[in-house]
């Protein structure tokens, strides 16, 4: 068995494990919702935030609590094993290619999703973010599956423009930033959903808003009640986005230094540069909005979500449709 076979097999295995993990996390969430008092409470963000009204309603049923615990055990085990296998897959891809495994879209996808899962497990170490598990493993399953089935490209040598240690620095930090911002996006989405549920039926004049609020109040979204309060989620989202923003700033600067070195100009409004700039500005707006009256809370969370949409745009449409100097990314 060669490195290429090991890599592809390990990555498919990781995809399946994450898929199982996602289902188990979802089951856990559903069960936890049913027995809120017992399982949902231990969210150890700074003490003293008023307990959410949902957390003290129902009395736990022992059967549910047991099933929930079992599901959580399966979810955690598959995610950790998935991360190990995923790491093996990414590393052997690097060995197969003979360079860092983030020089093409396929490689970027497998490395970026690895970072997202790792960030989730790291955050999990100092604070209970089980409620994010389904989202993170789901995201990893989809991106790995798409990567392997759609984006897969044979490992090739690096073209001259990429033969630089800046590939290690610039792209690795971009991958990490993407992973961190992905988790931040999940937290902000959850924050919006939770705030919507807490607010109850909408009295807005807009029919769209009323419909959206009614949808989020439906039974399918009950799992959101397991998540912490919007204020606590906002605090977590801010920390993640702050890290992501600093990493993105570094990515853009390192990219500019590399561009100056390889192409002779530090900034040339290449489509990739345009979108990196757009992403940077949107997240900058998010950071300002957090502290601006009338924008704090839900509106700034919307900005964070738009920011991540731009990240995805930068990775997909800009790579595949727009012609630019970064077009080797699809190779």
């Amino acid at each position, binding site marked *: 068995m060669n490195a290429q076979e090991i890599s592809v097999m390990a990555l498919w295995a990781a995809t399946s494990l994450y898929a199982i993990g996602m289902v188990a996390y979802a089951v856990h969430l559903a069960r936890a919702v049913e027995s809120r008092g017992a399982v949902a409470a231990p969210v150890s963000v700074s003490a003293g935030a008023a307990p959410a009204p949902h957390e003290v309603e129902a009395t736990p049923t022992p059967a549910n609590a047991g099933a929930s615990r079992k599901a959580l055990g399966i979810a955690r085990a598959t995610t950790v094993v998935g991360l190990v296998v995923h790491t093996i897959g990414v590393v052997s891809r690097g060995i197969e290619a003979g360079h860092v495994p983030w020089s093409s879209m396929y490689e970027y996808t497998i490395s970026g999703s690895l970072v997202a899962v790792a960030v989730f497990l790291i955050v999990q170490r100092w604070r209970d973010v089980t409620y994010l598990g389904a989202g993170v493993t789901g995201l990893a399953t989809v991106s790995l599956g798409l990567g392997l089935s759609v984006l897969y490209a044979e490992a090739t040598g690096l*073209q*001259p423009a990429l033969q630089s240690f800046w590939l290690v620095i610039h792209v690795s930090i971009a991958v990490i930033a993407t992973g961190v911002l992905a988790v931040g996006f999940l937290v902000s989405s959850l924050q919006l959903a939770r705030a919507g549920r807490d607010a109850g039926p909408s009295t807005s004049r807009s029919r769209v808003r009323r419909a959206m609020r009614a949808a989020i109040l439906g039974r399918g979204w009950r799992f959101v009640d397991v998540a912490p309060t919007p204020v606590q989620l906002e605090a977590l989202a801010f920390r993640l986005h702050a890290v992501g*923003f600093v990493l993105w700033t570094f990515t853009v600067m390192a990219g500019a230094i590399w561009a100056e070195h*390889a192409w002779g100009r530090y900034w040339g409004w290449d489509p990739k540069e345009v979108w990196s*700039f757009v992403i940077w500005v*949107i997240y900058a707006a998010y950071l300002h909005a957090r502290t*601006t009256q009338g924008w704090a809370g839900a509106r700034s969370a919307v900005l964070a979500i738009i920011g991540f949409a731009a990240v995805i745009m930068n990775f997909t449409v800009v790579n595949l449709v727009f012609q630019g100097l970064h077009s080797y990314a699809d190779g």
Partner: protein
Amino acid sequence: MADRQRPPRATYDNYAIAAGPRLGVRGWLRWMWRQVTSMRVALILLLLLALAAIPGSVLPQWPQDPSATRAYLEQYPTVGPLLDSWGFLDVFGSAWFTAIYLLLFASLVGCIVPRTVAHARALRAPISATPRSLERYVDRTEVEVDDATQALERVRAWVRPQPRWWGAITGYRVRLDERTVKGQRQWALAADKGHVREIGNLIFHVALVGILVSMAFGSLLTHRGQALIIEGRSFTNAVAAYDSFESGGLFSPDSLLPFTLRVNSFESQFDAAGRASFFRANVTLTEPGLTPRTDMIEVNRPLQVDGGKIYLQGNGYAPNLTVTDSAGNVAHDGPVPFLPQDEAYTSEGVVKVPDVTTGEQFGLEGTLLPSAVIDGDDAYSIHPDPTNPVIFFRVYMGDLGLDTGVPQNAYQLDKAQLSPVQDEQGEPQWLAMRPGDTVDLPDGLGTVTWESMPRFVALDLRADPTLPWLLGFAIASLLGLSMSLFGSQRRLWVIAPVTDGPTVVEAAAYGPAHDTTLDDRLRAMVAAATEQEHT
């Protein structure tokens, strides 16, 4: 704690109340300035900036890709010129994009100047006193100590290990009051760490202004030129020697250092699929007054010279062609650069033959296939390496248009007054040749001989004296940003009764909602007060 009720937003209309005082010109100006510098407007400008940049990635742009832009204008004759006149085909040079970022920077300056002044004052002013009661703080504790004065002294040493002014930057700023609350004498110690964030915030925004100013100066002082050099030939650094040369308004052409660069050889490597894996130009650089030195230029390894860098931007083949005219005189002799059009180095080149002994001028338009595969009427190149090089020529006769005085593209024929030479069927006639061949041109125009096939390199010299400044400001902005986002913003308080001997002191901590280590800091401070090792 954090779910504070915000006061309802109120809107004021200066003219809604007839009897209300009028603002006047100065009042309106002040109002406008306050609007521009308000956070809400900054936010809107940021979002506008992001939105305004997007067309620059969707539509072809003049500075980035002039040929694509021209093609776009031809393809959309109605919408294209409209978009062009509104600046959508040069978004980043357009008036509206410039207006947005200049307004944003005006807002930024209007924000940071007063904030810097206020912060400089705040840094010298004492921090605010300990609240009268710590009851309302969530992170609050009481602890027994042997001696209140010593406990406070230990806390002071713990919150600010460095006594001098930089201690206020690395640690907490401290204030100790002796006061009477509800008839009780007490000492109240307050420690504050919020200023690191604000300093970082100010550094970040000042550095952003620095980046913009550096870029502005850079565009005035920069110069760049492109030159195409064939293996074995030399280039002397002067404006006239470049194929194209651009410079900023403050650049003086006399300041160019007249160095000579000789391209000794060019090496390339492609894998079996034709993907490039390696390019290198071996050069000899002769700077005035210095001994010549050999060096090399690679894609990620520019050559430093005269305050600038020389980049390897492209390469291709320059077949050495000799053309004789109908009288048998040599009308052209030398390598002709063929510009690669695709990954397999299918290249286009022209030979202009204006100086013929008799008859009309003529030009050759050729397509070079380095690894030609001829498949019936179709021919294409399968690999960039010259395993089976073939050139297909078409011959044009007439007036090359070189005498009009208008500068011409050296790599294209101006076909306005040229007509293709046709065969008996009236089809344009093609000539195919390989290295070493001599072929006769149709209609007895002369002959073409393909002697050899040297390589050429496209070199790009760029200099921008503001680069070190830019790098410095970029690093400063990153540092400032990290300080402002990760610097902690905490207040710690200790209240102790004025008494000798064992007593109970009260301690509390306060920080923003995202600060998860607040209780930990409180425990550490209490441990310091009681002289315990904090783990």
